[in-house]
């Protein structure tokens, strides 16, 4: 473990903005993209039974 306190971990010894800005952007993008694809998937799946009946 490299950290003496939570404070040190959160501020990244002065690099907090840059490190958390990077990790945060990746986390947001890599959570939103799968949700977005799931939405597309669900939209097709709810459309499909109607087409199957016709």
């Amino acid at each position, binding site marked *: 473990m490299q950290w003496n306190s939570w404070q040190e971990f959160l501020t990244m010894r002065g*690099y907090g903005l840059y490190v958390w800005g*990077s*990790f945060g952007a990746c986390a947001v*993008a890599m959570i939103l993209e799968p949700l977005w694809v799931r939405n597309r*998937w669900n939209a097709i799946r709810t459309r499909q039974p109607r087409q199957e009946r016709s």
Partner: protein
Amino acid sequence: MSNSIINWFKYASPASFYPLAGRMIPWFSWLAVVLIASGVWLGLFVAPTDAQQSEGYRIIFVHVPASWMSMFIYCVMAFWSALGLAFNTRLSGMMTAALAPTGAMFAFLSLWTGALWGKPMWGTWWVWDARLTSQLILFFLYLGFIALQSAIDDPRRADRAGALLALVGVVNIPVIYFSVQWWNTLHQGASVSLTKAPSMAHVMLEGMLVMALGFWSYAIAVALTRVRCIILEREITSEWIKRNAVE
């Protein structure tokens, strides 16, 4: 010989690839979650402070994997494009189209994390040097591919046009990769290479590789889910979808 070729081509048909992709998605999703969680743990808690860059260097654990993925996904798109143009298989274009948004996302993340790394270390968010500019071009190639495909109504024509763009644009990949050797750039040289010993602590390298594998699994899971969407959207009227109530 003919047998082995037939087996490979079996999965070039959307009807047989669709269920295969469906079986692979949960595996790669879980693999991505486990690997990325371990990578974040290694990167933020286990890896030691860097002697020169203090904690700022920890951006490497997302920057390098995202950059690798952005280049790798483009190569895979070019591969599928070449296959699609050569054999005229429907699935190739679908795979290329399914990969593009994920590739664009990684190219953007590479630029974004690079800017956040550049500011504290170089004193600037952005410079027009060879590595950064060629990576920006890669991002625009992804956007161009997506725009071109969505501008053409007929999916098969859109696939062919996109395939051409993907193949022409792939010359940019070696330019990005070797830019730090060919030109004098602000960007540092490769930290990991196949021919030299890595220029960093073992645990840093391990964290980065675990993270890269996690991003890899993530990209596979998302792209396979997207390709299944595209298959259903395009082939909704075809017999095989009507026949088997597709799961």
